[in-house]
Protein backbone atom coordinates (compact mmCIF):
# COMPACT_ATOMS: atom_id res chain seq x y z
CA UNK A 1 0.00 0.00 0.00
CA UNK A 2 1.46 3.32 -0.97
CA UNK A 3 1.42 5.88 1.80
CA UNK A 4 -1.54 8.20 1.64
CA UNK A 5 -2.16 11.52 3.32
CA UNK A 6 -4.59 12.72 5.94
CA UNK A 7 -7.19 14.15 3.58
CA UNK A 8 -7.21 11.09 1.41
CA UNK A 9 -7.54 8.69 4.33
CA UNK A 10 -10.35 10.51 6.13
CA UNK A 11 -11.85 11.82 2.90
CA UNK A 12 -14.58 10.50 0.69
CA UNK A 13 -12.59 8.88 -2.09
CA UNK A 14 -12.32 5.19 -2.81
CA UNK A 15 -9.85 4.62 0.00
CA UNK A 16 -11.33 7.28 2.27
CA UNK A 17 -12.92 6.52 5.61
CA UNK A 18 -15.06 9.68 5.57
CA UNK A 19 -18.45 7.98 5.17
CA UNK A 20 -17.63 5.42 7.88
CA UNK A 21 -16.50 8.17 10.26
CA UNK A 22 -19.59 10.29 9.61
CA UNK A 23 -21.89 7.32 10.14
CA UNK A 24 -20.04 6.59 13.38
CA UNK A 25 -20.46 10.24 14.41
CA UNK A 26 -24.21 9.93 13.93
CA UNK A 27 -24.20 6.75 16.03
CA UNK A 28 -22.32 8.66 18.75
CA UNK A 29 -24.88 11.44 18.57
CA UNK A 30 -27.81 9.01 18.59
CA UNK A 31 -26.55 6.99 21.56
CA UNK A 32 -25.74 10.17 23.51
CA UNK A 33 -29.17 11.70 22.78
CA UNK A 34 -30.99 8.49 23.78
CA UNK A 35 -28.85 8.20 26.91
CA UNK A 36 -29.50 11.84 27.77
CA UNK A 37 -33.28 11.38 27.36
CA UNK A 38 -33.27 8.24 29.51
CA UNK A 39 -31.23 10.28 31.99
CA UNK A 40 -33.79 13.10 31.95
CA UNK A 41 -36.59 10.74 32.92
CA UNK A 42 -34.51 9.05 35.63
CA UNK A 43 -33.10 12.39 36.77
CA UNK A 44 -36.53 13.98 37.14
CA UNK A 45 -37.81 10.97 39.08
CA UNK A 46 -34.72 10.92 41.29
CA UNK A 47 -34.93 14.67 41.95
CA UNK A 48 -38.58 14.29 42.90
CA UNK A 49 -37.66 11.40 45.19
CA UNK A 50 -34.86 13.35 46.85
CA UNK A 51 -37.14 16.34 47.43
CA UNK A 52 -40.03 14.25 48.63
CA UNK A 53 -41.14 14.27 52.22
CA UNK A 54 -41.21 10.47 52.25
CA UNK A 55 -38.06 9.29 53.95
CA UNK A 56 -38.01 6.05 51.92
CA UNK A 57 -38.19 7.88 48.59
CA UNK A 58 -35.52 10.35 49.66
CA UNK A 59 -33.22 7.50 50.69
CA UNK A 60 -33.72 5.71 47.37
CA UNK A 61 -33.02 8.94 45.48
CA UNK A 62 -29.92 9.69 47.54
CA UNK A 63 -28.58 6.18 47.13
CA UNK A 64 -29.07 6.32 43.38
CA UNK A 65 -27.28 9.62 42.87
CA UNK A 66 -24.50 8.76 45.33
CA UNK A 67 -23.75 5.33 43.87
CA UNK A 68 -24.04 6.20 40.19
CA UNK A 69 -21.96 9.35 40.50
CA UNK A 70 -19.45 7.53 42.66
CA UNK A 71 -18.49 4.54 40.50
CA UNK A 72 -16.66 4.66 37.19
CA UNK A 73 -18.87 4.88 34.10
CA UNK A 74 -16.95 2.05 32.49
CA UNK A 75 -17.93 -0.26 35.34
CA UNK A 76 -21.60 0.58 34.81
CA UNK A 77 -21.24 -0.22 31.12
CA UNK A 78 -19.63 -3.60 31.82
CA UNK A 79 -22.31 -4.38 34.40
CA UNK A 80 -25.08 -3.64 31.93
CA UNK A 81 -23.45 -5.45 29.04
CA UNK A 82 -22.15 -8.66 30.58
CA UNK A 83 -24.41 -8.72 33.60
CA UNK A 84 -27.45 -7.87 31.53
CA UNK A 85 -27.00 -10.58 28.93
CA UNK A 86 -26.11 -13.13 31.60
CA UNK A 87 -29.25 -12.31 33.57
CA UNK A 88 -31.43 -12.38 30.45
CA UNK A 89 -29.93 -15.67 29.27
CA UNK A 90 -30.51 -17.25 32.67
CA UNK A 91 -34.04 -15.90 32.74
CA UNK A 92 -34.53 -17.41 29.27
CA UNK A 93 -33.27 -20.78 30.52
CA UNK A 94 -35.77 -20.71 33.37
CA UNK A 95 -38.50 -20.12 30.84
CA UNK A 96 -37.22 -22.96 28.70
CA UNK A 97 -35.36 -21.03 26.00
CA UNK A 98 -31.84 -22.34 25.64
CA UNK A 99 -30.15 -19.71 23.53
CA UNK A 100 -28.27 -16.50 24.04
CA UNK A 101 -30.33 -13.50 25.00
CA UNK A 102 -29.00 -10.00 25.13
CA UNK A 103 -30.01 -6.45 24.53
CA UNK A 104 -28.60 -4.92 21.34
CA UNK A 105 -25.39 -3.03 22.07
CA UNK A 106 -27.01 0.29 21.17
CA UNK A 107 -29.75 -0.17 23.76
CA UNK A 108 -27.25 -1.37 26.37
CA UNK A 109 -25.08 1.65 25.69
CA UNK A 110 -27.95 4.14 25.81
CA UNK A 111 -29.23 2.65 29.07
CA UNK A 112 -25.78 2.68 30.66
CA UNK A 113 -25.28 6.31 29.69
CA UNK A 114 -28.82 7.04 30.85
CA UNK A 115 -28.49 5.72 34.39
CA UNK A 116 -25.22 7.55 34.98
CA UNK A 117 -26.44 10.73 33.34
CA UNK A 118 -29.70 10.55 35.28
CA UNK A 119 -27.78 10.76 38.53
CA UNK A 120 -26.13 13.99 37.44
CA UNK A 121 -29.35 15.39 35.99
CA UNK A 122 -31.14 14.67 39.28
CA UNK A 123 -28.75 17.03 41.04
CA UNK A 124 -29.25 19.67 38.35
CA UNK A 125 -33.04 19.44 38.63
CA UNK A 126 -32.93 19.46 42.41
CA UNK A 127 -30.76 22.56 42.45
CA UNK A 128 -33.04 24.28 39.95
CA UNK A 129 -36.13 23.43 41.98
CA UNK A 130 -34.55 24.77 45.15
CA UNK A 131 -33.90 28.10 43.46
CA UNK A 132 -37.60 28.62 42.77
CA UNK A 133 -39.01 31.39 44.87
CA UNK A 134 -41.15 30.03 47.70
CA UNK A 135 -43.47 32.98 47.38
CA UNK A 136 -44.53 31.97 43.89
CA UNK A 137 -45.44 28.48 45.02
CA UNK A 138 -47.40 29.89 47.94
CA UNK A 139 -49.15 32.33 45.63
CA UNK A 140 -50.09 29.52 43.27
CA UNK A 141 -51.50 27.50 46.14
CA UNK A 142 -53.40 30.47 47.49
CA UNK A 143 -55.23 31.03 44.21
CA UNK A 144 -56.32 27.42 44.39
CA UNK A 145 -54.14 25.81 41.74
CA UNK A 146 -54.13 22.04 41.87
CA UNK A 147 -50.72 20.41 42.34
CA UNK A 148 -50.69 19.20 38.74
CA UNK A 149 -51.49 22.65 37.38
CA UNK A 150 -48.94 24.28 39.64
CA UNK A 151 -46.35 21.77 38.49
CA UNK A 152 -47.09 22.41 34.84
CA UNK A 153 -47.49 26.21 34.93
CA UNK A 154 -45.13 27.28 37.70
CA UNK A 155 -42.56 24.61 38.49
CA UNK A 156 -41.57 23.09 35.14
CA UNK A 157 -41.03 26.32 33.17
CA UNK A 158 -38.84 27.82 35.86
CA UNK A 159 -36.95 24.63 36.70
CA UNK A 160 -36.14 24.23 33.01
CA UNK A 161 -34.91 27.81 32.88
CA UNK A 162 -32.56 27.37 35.83
CA UNK A 163 -31.55 23.88 34.74
CA UNK A 164 -30.41 24.68 31.21
CA UNK A 165 -26.79 25.65 31.98
CA UNK A 166 -26.36 22.59 34.21
CA UNK A 167 -28.01 20.35 31.65
CA UNK A 168 -25.61 21.63 29.01
CA UNK A 169 -22.77 20.38 31.17
CA UNK A 170 -24.39 17.02 31.76
CA UNK A 171 -25.12 16.65 28.04
CA UNK A 172 -21.43 17.02 27.29
CA UNK A 173 -20.73 14.31 29.86
CA UNK A 174 -23.15 12.04 27.98
CA UNK A 175 -21.51 12.83 24.67
CA UNK A 176 -18.08 11.99 25.97
CA UNK A 177 -19.24 8.97 27.92
CA UNK A 178 -20.52 7.56 24.65
CA UNK A 179 -16.88 6.98 23.71
CA UNK A 180 -16.71 4.37 26.48
CA UNK A 181 -19.46 2.43 24.73
CA UNK A 182 -16.83 1.38 22.19
CA UNK A 183 -15.72 -1.37 24.62
CA UNK A 184 -18.94 -3.29 24.14
CA UNK A 185 -18.57 -3.27 20.38
CA UNK A 186 -20.92 -0.49 19.32
CA UNK A 187 -19.27 1.12 16.33
CA UNK A 188 -19.47 4.72 17.44
CA UNK A 189 -16.91 7.38 16.64
CA UNK A 190 -14.09 6.21 18.91
CA UNK A 191 -14.47 2.53 17.99
CA UNK A 192 -14.55 3.43 14.30
CA UNK A 193 -11.37 5.44 14.77
CA UNK A 194 -9.73 2.46 16.47
CA UNK A 195 -10.83 0.14 13.67
CA UNK A 196 -9.46 2.54 11.08
CA UNK A 197 -6.23 3.00 13.03
CA UNK A 198 -5.69 -0.74 13.44
CA UNK A 199 -6.61 -1.48 9.85
CA UNK A 200 -4.49 1.15 8.13
CA UNK A 201 -1.83 1.49 10.85
CA UNK A 202 -2.31 5.26 10.67
CA UNK A 203 -3.52 5.94 14.23
CA UNK A 204 -2.71 9.67 14.15
CA UNK A 205 -4.99 10.47 11.26
CA UNK A 206 -7.92 8.63 12.76
CA UNK A 207 -7.62 9.94 16.29
CA UNK A 208 -7.14 13.45 14.95
CA UNK A 209 -10.24 13.10 12.77
CA UNK A 210 -12.21 11.71 15.72
CA UNK A 211 -11.08 14.59 17.95
CA UNK A 212 -12.21 17.11 15.33
CA UNK A 213 -15.60 15.42 15.00
CA UNK A 214 -16.12 15.26 18.79
CA UNK A 215 -15.16 18.90 19.03
CA UNK A 216 -17.65 19.76 16.29
CA UNK A 217 -20.41 17.98 18.20
CA UNK A 218 -19.60 19.68 21.50
CA UNK A 219 -19.17 23.11 19.90
CA UNK A 220 -22.52 22.88 18.14
CA UNK A 221 -24.20 21.74 21.34
CA UNK A 222 -22.63 24.56 23.34
CA UNK A 223 -24.08 27.05 20.88
CA UNK A 224 -27.46 25.32 20.96
CA UNK A 225 -27.58 25.38 24.76
CA UNK A 226 -26.56 29.04 24.77
CA UNK A 227 -29.43 29.83 22.40
CA UNK A 228 -31.84 27.83 24.55
CA UNK A 229 -30.65 29.67 27.64
CA UNK A 230 -31.11 33.07 26.02
CA UNK A 231 -34.58 32.09 24.93
CA UNK A 232 -35.52 30.78 28.35
CA UNK A 233 -34.22 33.92 30.03
CA UNK A 234 -36.07 36.32 27.73
CA UNK A 235 -38.20 38.56 29.85
CA UNK A 236 -35.97 38.06 32.85
CA UNK A 237 -34.13 41.17 33.84
CA UNK A 238 -30.45 40.65 34.43
CA UNK A 239 -28.17 42.70 36.61
CA UNK A 240 -25.75 44.59 34.42
Amino acid at each position, binding site marked *: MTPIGFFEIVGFGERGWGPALLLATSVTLAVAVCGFLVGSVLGALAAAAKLSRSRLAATIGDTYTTVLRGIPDLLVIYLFYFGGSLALTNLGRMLGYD*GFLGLPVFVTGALAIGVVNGAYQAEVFRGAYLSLSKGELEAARSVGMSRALMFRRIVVPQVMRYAIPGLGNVWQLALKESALISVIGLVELLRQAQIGAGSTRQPFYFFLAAAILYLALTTISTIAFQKAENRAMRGVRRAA
Partner: protein
Amino acid sequence: MSKTKAFGPGLAGAVVALALAAQPAAAQGWETVRIATEGAYAPWNFSNPDGTLAGFEIDLANTLCERMEVTCEIVVQDWAGIIPSLQSGKYDAIMAGMNITDQRLEVIGFSIPYAGGPHGLAVMADSPLADLPGEGRLSLDSDPDAVAALIAEWTPMLEGKVIGVQGSTTNANFLTEYLGDIVEIREYGTTEQHDLDLSAGRLDGIFAAHSAFNATMQKPEFADMKIVGPGLSGGVLGRGVAVGVRQENEDLRDMFTKAIEEAKADGTIKELSEKWFGLDMTPAG
Protein backbone atom coordinates in the same frame (compact mmCIF):
# COMPACT_ATOMS: atom_id res chain seq x y z
CA MET B 1 -19.19 -17.58 1.28
CA SER B 2 -20.63 -14.34 2.43
CA LYS B 3 -18.58 -11.82 4.28
CA THR B 4 -20.94 -10.50 6.84
CA LYS B 5 -21.60 -6.85 7.34
CA ALA B 6 -19.04 -5.99 9.90
CA PHE B 7 -20.25 -2.85 11.53
CA GLY B 8 -22.60 -2.69 14.44
CA PRO B 9 -26.22 -1.75 14.26
CA GLY B 10 -25.66 1.66 12.73
CA LEU B 11 -28.35 4.30 12.89
CA ALA B 12 -31.16 2.32 11.37
CA GLY B 13 -30.70 -0.65 13.65
CA ALA B 14 -30.07 1.75 16.46
CA VAL B 15 -33.41 3.45 16.30
CA VAL B 16 -35.32 0.24 15.83
CA ALA B 17 -35.20 -1.94 18.80
CA LEU B 18 -36.01 -1.25 22.35
CA ALA B 19 -37.23 -4.82 22.23
CA LEU B 20 -35.09 -7.79 23.07
CA ALA B 21 -32.93 -9.09 20.30
CA ALA B 22 -33.02 -12.80 20.72
CA GLN B 23 -30.35 -14.63 18.83
CA PRO B 24 -30.80 -18.36 18.57
CA ALA B 25 -28.00 -20.49 19.96
CA ALA B 26 -25.78 -22.48 17.68
CA ALA B 27 -27.82 -24.69 15.45
CA GLN B 28 -27.36 -28.31 16.31
CA GLY B 29 -25.26 -30.07 13.70
CA TRP B 30 -23.50 -26.75 12.97
CA GLU B 31 -24.94 -25.45 9.75
CA THR B 32 -23.93 -21.91 10.62
CA VAL B 33 -20.90 -20.92 12.67
CA ARG B 34 -20.50 -17.36 13.92
CA ILE B 35 -16.85 -16.35 14.14
CA ALA B 36 -15.69 -13.24 15.98
CA THR B 37 -12.66 -11.23 14.99
CA GLU B 38 -11.24 -7.89 16.10
CA GLY B 39 -11.31 -6.20 12.70
CA ALA B 40 -8.54 -3.83 13.73
CA TYR B 41 -5.35 -5.91 13.80
CA ALA B 42 -3.73 -5.69 10.39
CA PRO B 43 -2.67 -7.88 8.70
CA TRP B 44 -4.33 -10.64 10.80
CA ASN B 45 -7.79 -9.13 10.48
CA PHE B 46 -8.78 -5.62 9.60
CA SER B 47 -11.52 -3.49 8.09
CA ASN B 48 -11.77 -1.70 4.78
CA PRO B 49 -13.27 1.79 4.65
CA ASP B 50 -16.56 0.32 3.39
CA GLY B 51 -16.78 -1.92 6.45
CA THR B 52 -15.82 -5.20 4.78
CA LEU B 53 -13.24 -7.34 6.50
CA ALA B 54 -9.94 -8.56 5.12
CA GLY B 55 -6.74 -10.16 6.31
CA PHE B 56 -5.09 -13.50 6.99
CA GLU B 57 -7.75 -14.76 9.35
CA ILE B 58 -10.62 -13.73 7.11
CA ASP B 59 -9.17 -15.71 4.18
CA LEU B 60 -8.37 -18.58 6.51
CA ALA B 61 -11.84 -18.61 8.07
CA ASN B 62 -13.36 -18.80 4.61
CA THR B 63 -11.28 -21.78 3.57
CA LEU B 64 -11.79 -23.54 6.92
CA CYS B 65 -15.56 -23.09 6.70
CA GLU B 66 -15.55 -24.45 3.18
CA ARG B 67 -13.68 -27.51 4.43
CA MET B 68 -16.08 -27.94 7.36
CA GLU B 69 -19.03 -27.51 4.99
CA VAL B 70 -20.69 -24.88 7.14
CA THR B 71 -21.85 -21.34 6.46
CA CYS B 72 -19.81 -18.80 8.36
CA GLU B 73 -20.80 -15.44 9.63
CA ILE B 74 -17.89 -13.24 10.68
CA VAL B 75 -18.65 -10.62 13.32
CA VAL B 76 -16.49 -7.86 14.75
CA GLN B 77 -15.91 -7.67 18.48
CA ASP B 78 -13.67 -5.40 20.53
CA TRP B 79 -10.69 -7.31 21.92
CA ALA B 80 -11.39 -6.59 25.59
CA GLY B 81 -14.78 -8.31 25.48
CA ILE B 82 -13.96 -11.08 23.03
CA ILE B 83 -13.84 -14.04 25.48
CA PRO B 84 -16.79 -13.02 27.71
CA SER B 85 -18.95 -12.57 24.62
CA LEU B 86 -17.99 -16.04 23.35
CA GLN B 87 -19.00 -17.50 26.69
CA SER B 88 -22.27 -15.65 26.78
CA GLY B 89 -23.08 -17.11 23.35
CA LYS B 90 -22.92 -14.05 21.12
CA TYR B 91 -20.89 -16.12 18.68
CA ASP B 92 -19.39 -19.60 18.48
CA ALA B 93 -15.70 -19.16 17.70
CA ILE B 94 -12.88 -16.63 17.89
CA MET B 95 -10.25 -16.09 15.19
CA ALA B 96 -8.46 -12.94 16.26
CA GLY B 97 -4.75 -13.65 16.54
CA MET B 98 -5.46 -15.33 19.87
CA ASN B 99 -2.72 -17.50 21.36
CA ILE B 100 -3.41 -20.69 23.30
CA THR B 101 -2.45 -20.15 26.96
CA ASP B 102 -3.08 -22.01 30.20
CA GLN B 103 -5.22 -19.19 31.56
CA ARG B 104 -7.38 -19.11 28.46
CA LEU B 105 -7.65 -22.93 28.44
CA GLU B 106 -9.28 -22.68 31.85
CA VAL B 107 -12.21 -20.83 30.33
CA ILE B 108 -12.40 -21.76 26.63
CA GLY B 109 -11.34 -24.55 24.30
CA PHE B 110 -8.90 -24.28 21.39
CA SER B 111 -8.35 -26.05 18.08
CA ILE B 112 -4.78 -26.90 17.08
CA PRO B 113 -2.82 -23.74 16.19
CA TYR B 114 -3.05 -22.28 12.68
CA ALA B 115 -0.14 -19.88 13.17
CA GLY B 116 2.81 -19.90 15.53
CA GLY B 117 4.73 -16.72 15.01
CA PRO B 118 7.80 -15.80 17.04
CA HIS B 119 7.69 -12.94 19.55
CA GLY B 120 10.46 -10.61 20.57
CA LEU B 121 11.80 -7.16 21.26
CA ALA B 122 12.07 -4.25 18.87
CA VAL B 123 13.85 -0.92 19.38
CA MET B 124 14.73 2.10 17.29
CA ALA B 125 18.01 1.63 15.39
CA ASP B 126 19.77 4.46 17.26
CA SER B 127 18.91 2.99 20.66
CA PRO B 128 21.64 1.68 23.00
CA LEU B 129 19.64 -1.55 22.95
CA ALA B 130 20.12 -1.91 19.18
CA ASP B 131 22.85 -4.51 19.69
CA LEU B 132 21.06 -6.55 22.33
CA PRO B 133 22.51 -10.07 22.01
CA GLY B 134 20.67 -13.16 20.82
CA GLU B 135 19.36 -14.42 17.49
CA GLY B 136 17.50 -17.24 15.80
CA ARG B 137 14.58 -18.96 17.50
CA LEU B 138 14.26 -19.98 21.14
CA SER B 139 11.50 -22.04 22.71
CA LEU B 140 10.55 -21.36 26.32
CA ASP B 141 9.39 -24.99 26.53
CA SER B 142 12.36 -26.86 25.11
CA ASP B 143 15.32 -24.52 25.80
CA PRO B 144 14.67 -23.17 29.30
CA ASP B 145 18.42 -23.03 30.06
CA ALA B 146 19.21 -21.01 26.97
CA VAL B 147 16.37 -18.63 27.85
CA ALA B 148 17.67 -18.23 31.41
CA ALA B 149 21.16 -17.52 30.06
CA LEU B 150 19.75 -14.96 27.65
CA ILE B 151 17.81 -13.17 30.39
CA ALA B 152 20.98 -13.10 32.54
CA GLU B 153 22.91 -11.61 29.62
CA TRP B 154 20.18 -9.03 28.99
CA THR B 155 19.69 -8.01 32.62
CA PRO B 156 22.49 -5.40 32.91
CA MET B 157 21.52 -3.82 29.57
CA LEU B 158 17.78 -3.75 30.25
CA GLU B 159 17.94 -2.67 33.89
CA GLY B 160 15.41 0.16 34.42
CA LYS B 161 14.48 0.45 30.73
CA VAL B 162 10.85 1.12 29.83
CA ILE B 163 9.30 -1.58 27.64
CA GLY B 164 5.87 -1.23 26.04
CA VAL B 165 3.49 -4.11 25.44
CA GLN B 166 -0.17 -4.64 24.58
CA GLY B 167 -2.06 -5.44 27.79
CA SER B 168 -3.97 -8.72 28.32
CA THR B 169 -1.69 -10.54 25.88
CA THR B 170 0.77 -13.42 26.12
CA ASN B 171 3.48 -10.83 25.42
CA ALA B 172 2.55 -8.99 28.60
CA ASN B 173 2.64 -12.27 30.52
CA PHE B 174 6.13 -13.00 29.21
CA LEU B 175 7.45 -9.58 30.24
CA THR B 176 5.95 -9.84 33.71
CA GLU B 177 7.30 -13.31 34.30
CA TYR B 178 10.76 -13.04 32.78
CA LEU B 179 11.65 -9.35 32.94
CA GLY B 180 9.18 -8.01 35.47
CA ASP B 181 11.86 -7.24 38.09
CA ILE B 182 14.28 -5.76 35.59
CA VAL B 183 12.40 -3.44 33.27
CA GLU B 184 9.54 -1.05 33.77
CA ILE B 185 6.58 -2.48 31.86
CA ARG B 186 4.09 -0.09 30.32
CA GLU B 187 0.86 -1.60 29.02
CA TYR B 188 -1.05 -0.28 26.01
CA GLY B 189 -4.47 -0.99 24.56
CA THR B 190 -3.19 -1.68 21.06
CA THR B 191 0.13 -2.32 19.35
CA GLU B 192 -0.16 0.96 17.39
CA GLN B 193 -0.08 2.88 20.64
CA HIS B 194 3.21 1.39 21.79
CA ASP B 195 4.65 1.77 18.30
CA LEU B 196 3.89 5.49 18.51
CA ASP B 197 5.43 5.82 21.95
CA LEU B 198 8.53 3.95 20.80
CA SER B 199 9.05 6.36 17.93
CA ALA B 200 8.28 9.29 20.24
CA GLY B 201 11.12 8.13 22.48
CA ARG B 202 8.89 7.48 25.46
CA LEU B 203 9.76 3.80 25.36
CA ASP B 204 13.14 2.10 25.13
CA GLY B 205 11.70 -0.98 23.47
CA ILE B 206 8.52 -2.86 22.67
CA PHE B 207 7.70 -6.52 23.02
CA ALA B 208 5.30 -8.00 20.45
CA ALA B 209 4.90 -10.61 17.73
CA HIS B 210 7.45 -10.40 14.91
CA SER B 211 4.57 -10.34 12.45
CA ALA B 212 3.32 -7.11 14.04
CA PHE B 213 6.84 -5.62 13.79
CA ASN B 214 7.05 -6.58 10.11
CA ALA B 215 3.83 -4.74 9.37
CA THR B 216 4.91 -1.69 11.37
CA MET B 217 8.33 -1.49 9.74
CA GLN B 218 6.70 -1.17 6.32
CA LYS B 219 5.62 2.33 7.28
CA PRO B 220 8.19 4.94 6.29
CA GLU B 221 8.34 6.56 9.74
CA PHE B 222 9.20 3.17 11.26
CA ALA B 223 11.80 2.24 8.65
CA ASP B 224 14.58 2.43 11.25
CA MET B 225 12.84 0.26 13.81
CA LYS B 226 14.79 -2.92 14.44
CA ILE B 227 13.99 -6.37 15.81
CA VAL B 228 16.59 -7.39 18.40
CA GLY B 229 17.29 -10.67 20.18
CA PRO B 230 15.90 -14.06 19.23
CA GLY B 231 12.37 -14.96 18.19
CA LEU B 232 10.76 -16.49 21.27
CA SER B 233 7.85 -18.91 21.41
CA GLY B 234 6.21 -21.51 23.65
CA GLY B 235 5.63 -21.39 27.43
CA VAL B 236 3.81 -18.28 28.62
CA LEU B 237 3.98 -16.97 25.06
CA GLY B 238 1.43 -19.58 24.15
CA ARG B 239 1.37 -22.57 21.93
CA GLY B 240 0.42 -20.68 18.83
CA VAL B 241 -2.61 -18.89 17.49
CA ALA B 242 -5.72 -21.04 17.32
CA VAL B 243 -9.49 -20.95 17.00
CA GLY B 244 -11.17 -20.42 20.39
CA VAL B 245 -14.51 -22.11 21.10
CA ARG B 246 -16.70 -22.68 24.17
CA GLN B 247 -15.41 -25.63 26.20
CA GLU B 248 -18.61 -27.62 25.78
CA ASN B 249 -18.43 -27.39 21.96
CA GLU B 250 -15.88 -30.18 21.56
CA ASP B 251 -17.46 -31.19 18.25
CA LEU B 252 -16.86 -27.72 16.80
CA ARG B 253 -13.31 -27.67 18.13
CA ASP B 254 -12.60 -31.01 16.42
CA MET B 255 -14.12 -29.75 13.16
CA PHE B 256 -11.77 -26.76 13.20
CA THR B 257 -8.79 -28.95 14.09
CA LYS B 258 -9.48 -31.29 11.19
CA ALA B 259 -9.91 -28.40 8.75
CA ILE B 260 -6.67 -26.74 9.97
CA GLU B 261 -4.77 -30.01 9.55
CA GLU B 262 -5.98 -30.21 5.96
CA ALA B 263 -5.10 -26.60 5.25
CA LYS B 264 -1.62 -27.12 6.73
CA ALA B 265 -1.06 -30.32 4.77
CA ASP B 266 -1.97 -28.87 1.37
CA GLY B 267 0.05 -25.67 1.90
CA THR B 268 -2.93 -23.31 2.12
CA ILE B 269 -1.82 -21.88 5.46
CA LYS B 270 1.73 -21.30 4.21
CA GLU B 271 0.39 -19.58 1.11
CA LEU B 272 -1.97 -17.31 3.06
CA SER B 273 0.69 -16.55 5.65
CA GLU B 274 3.18 -15.48 2.98
CA LYS B 275 0.50 -13.43 1.25
CA TRP B 276 -0.37 -11.46 4.38
CA PHE B 277 2.77 -11.49 6.55
CA GLY B 278 5.56 -11.99 4.07
CA LEU B 279 6.78 -14.87 6.21
CA ASP B 280 5.73 -18.45 6.75
CA MET B 281 4.06 -18.75 10.12
CA THR B 282 2.73 -22.29 9.73
CA PRO B 283 3.04 -23.83 13.19
CA ALA B 284 5.53 -26.65 13.56
CA GLY B 285 4.32 -30.23 14.02
